């Protein structure tokens, strides 16, 4: 392997791993803030128990999310220094703003939140939870501002041998960002919903003694999951249309559509054959792809081979086709998992609307195992959006192979690739161990009422 391949693998591994935890932080921070707020408004002690119980699980996640987050910020300079030189004038700013605006807020207030249960009134403590949630979710806006620039560069000019920022507000107004951020934000909400539902289902299955707060949690999770996934799917649909217009190669690869079609048919199951620039097997639904893109059964959708020719004219000779097999299937898994979650969240929501609902053990098991669905959907979504942009690191401006560090040798890159992978593998063992331990607790265990002396 060369430095390029190793650096790409390392980026993929540390980033996808980091993003196992990020959506939980995004969604759970809001969920916990809501629980604390309901407790303040209603005085229902169950919600305080819930905030504490889910808060513990949230913190186990938060620690490893923060820890693996530092790598994210450093690795552009470490492994992608030529990228950093060429794009730093634009790309560095949102990262610095993310730290100044979001990380300080999130990290300072989470510390006060953890240690402040008995130092603040319930109202004050709920305010802290909201500040943590605000900080976390603000950070998503800024890192996605940076990522959106890589997908759809705006507000820049080529000068002094690099890309320079000429319009900061164009960066923030990037249309890509305002599809991507809500998509990510609501996938965080979905993630939290399924996390809460899954663990609550386990307790109902095991008939935990104090089941009431878990039933409330189940209902809470179903609502979060359903609201989240409806928006994810809805926004995802328009995001796809936007991508077809701005990154036609990405969406053609997502559909394994080699030749331009009008009306275009949607593929249900394809085995792309990249060497021969066609599919070796494909089942299609006529007209549907046009419908998905233009809301009517007609309309031209560009194929991979046609876009390739266009790009050769525009950017010079070269291979502009991403890995179609990977793009096609990661996209399909993402969409498939999304609709599966929509179905599950809808059914659970309908079933849990009544105050004293019951669930069959078989259904509880399904809900429990659904805990992994958001992670699968989100990870494949990210892998799709990054690999289907290739060969570009910044679309149309810089190729991935141009971005790597010249100072890093194969040996050094391999050392860190193996080092991070082994370290992360070990850490997940401990994380899961603690998650299991704390997820299995009854909410009354370890629970301290507000004034122990008066209780």
């Amino acid at each position: 392997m060369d430095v390029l391949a190793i650096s790409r693998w390392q980026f993929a591994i540390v980033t996808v791993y980091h993003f196992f935890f990020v959506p939980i932080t995004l969604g759970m921070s809001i969920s916990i803030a809501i629980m604390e707020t309901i407790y303040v408004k209603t005085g229902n002690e169950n919600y305080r128990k819930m905030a504490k119980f889910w808060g513990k699980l949230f913190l186990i996640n938060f620690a490893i999310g923060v820890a693996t987050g530092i790598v994210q910020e450093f690795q552009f300079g470490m492994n992608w220094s030529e990228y950093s030189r060429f794009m730093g004038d634009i790309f560095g700013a949102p990262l610095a703003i993310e730290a100044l605006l979001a990380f300080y807020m999130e990290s300072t207030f989470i510390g006060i939140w953890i240690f402040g249960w008995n130092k603040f009134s319930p109202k004050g403590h709920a305010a802290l939870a909201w500040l943590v949630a605000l900080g976390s979710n603000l950070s998503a806006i800024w890192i996605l501002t940076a990522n959106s620039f890589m997908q759809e560069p705006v507000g820049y000019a080529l000068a002094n041998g690099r890309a320079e920022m000429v319009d900061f507000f164009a960066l923030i107004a990037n249309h890509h960002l305002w599809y991507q951020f809500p998509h990510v934000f609501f996938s965080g909400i979905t993630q939290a919903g399924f996390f809460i539902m899954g663990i609550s289902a386990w307790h109902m299955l095991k008939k935990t003694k104090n089941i009431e707060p878990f039933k409330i949690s189940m209902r809470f999770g179903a609502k979060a999951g359903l609201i989240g996934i409806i928006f994810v799917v809805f926004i995802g649909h328009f995001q796809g249309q936007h991508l077809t217009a701005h990154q036609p190669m990405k969406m053609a690869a997502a559909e394994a559509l080699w030749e331009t079609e009008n009306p275009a048919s949607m593929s249900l199951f394809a085995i792309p054959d990249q060497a021969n620039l066609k599919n070796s097997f494909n089942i299609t639904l006529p007209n549907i792809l046009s419908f998905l893109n233009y809301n009517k059964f007609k309309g031209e959708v560009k194929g991979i081979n046609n876009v390739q020719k266009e790009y050769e004219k525009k950017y010079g000779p070269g291979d502009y086709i991403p890995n179609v097999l990977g793009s096609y299937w990661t996209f399909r898994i993402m969409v498939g998992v999304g609709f599966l979650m929509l179905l599950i969240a809808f059914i659970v929501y309908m079933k849990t609307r009544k105050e004293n609902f019951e669930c069959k053990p078989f259904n509880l098991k399904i809900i429990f195992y659904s805990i992994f669905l958001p992670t699968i959907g989100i990870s494949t979504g990210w892998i799709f959006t990054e690999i289907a942009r290739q060969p570009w690191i910044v679309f149309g401006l810089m190729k991935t192979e141009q971005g790597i560090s010249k100072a890093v040798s194969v040996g050094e890159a391999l050392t860190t690739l193996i080092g991070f992978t082994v370290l992360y593998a070990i850490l997940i063992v401990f994380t899961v161990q603690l998650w299991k331990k704390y997820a299995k607790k009854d909410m009354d265990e370890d629970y301290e009422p507000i004034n122990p002396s008066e209780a």
Partner: protein
Amino acid sequence: MDLNTVWFILITVLFIGYFFLEGFDYGVGMLLPFIAKDDTERRMIINTIGPHWDGNEVWLLTAGGALFAAFPEWYATLFSGFYLPLFLMLVGLIVRAVAFEYRSKEDSLKWRYNWDRMIFLGSFLTALLWGVAIANIMRGTPIDATKTYTGGFFNLLNPYGLIGGVTFVVLFLFHGAVFLSLKIGGEFQKRIVETAQKLWLPSVIMAVIFILYTYFDVDIFSAKGLSAFVPPLLAAVSLVLSGFYLKSNKAGISFILTSLTVVFITVAVFFTLYPNVMISSTSPEYNLTIYNASASQYTLGVMTWVAGILVPFILVYQAWSYIVFKKRLTKDSELEY
């Protein structure tokens, strides 16, 4: 003053914040396995920085982000050049962060003490490697015409670099011990003060060696003349004084003085560098400066607005977080971690 200089100063401020705050965090982390008699005392130690370490670490993240935004070439050269040390530092920071949150979540002493070893290791590695890195940045490293570091890993482990590393470790140990003597009460505090007193002399000796070595190994007179003496001298004076105040049981003043030591050392480092940011030992022509390594004037302008608006808020709420948890911890305190 031009925007490049403004941002050089802001980067200096971010590193001051980082070394001042995480300096005592790392010191506390390194002392943890050695000064506590039992698990309760260990928990007291960890809980002194419990609410703060995460917020303190953001100073490093922000310094990294600000470097990227304001001086992309500096960020690119430094981070790709010091590749393996940074990797080791990241490993240290990762295990340390996870350890704080996980160590008290199981009852087994073996589990807890193993995580404490990770807290020690992470704190030690990070302190050591920053010392090594800072010393090498001042001394100059092989950098070619394309602003690429060409020295490899072992080039960084020269005597001056290593002395820098050891100095940071000892200094942070002392800074951390003084911090603990301020944050812990009861009988345990007496033992901590004793430890701090023992650490004072080694840190004075290392600081003096490091400062003297700097004058012999790093060319700073030619550019700065006698003014280059001022910040290191102030650092040395504060460090010496902090020991005396510790002896007369004024831990508060002593802590202010160790903090000033860290501040002046950081100022000395950046003042020595200015207007360079990375010195090339290959040829002075290849030096990275605040001008040839910087972002565009437009980006610097945008970032100046952003920092100008946000930094005051950050200072206020971080300071407030210390006021909220200002009480000394004793055996009877409620321990979260």
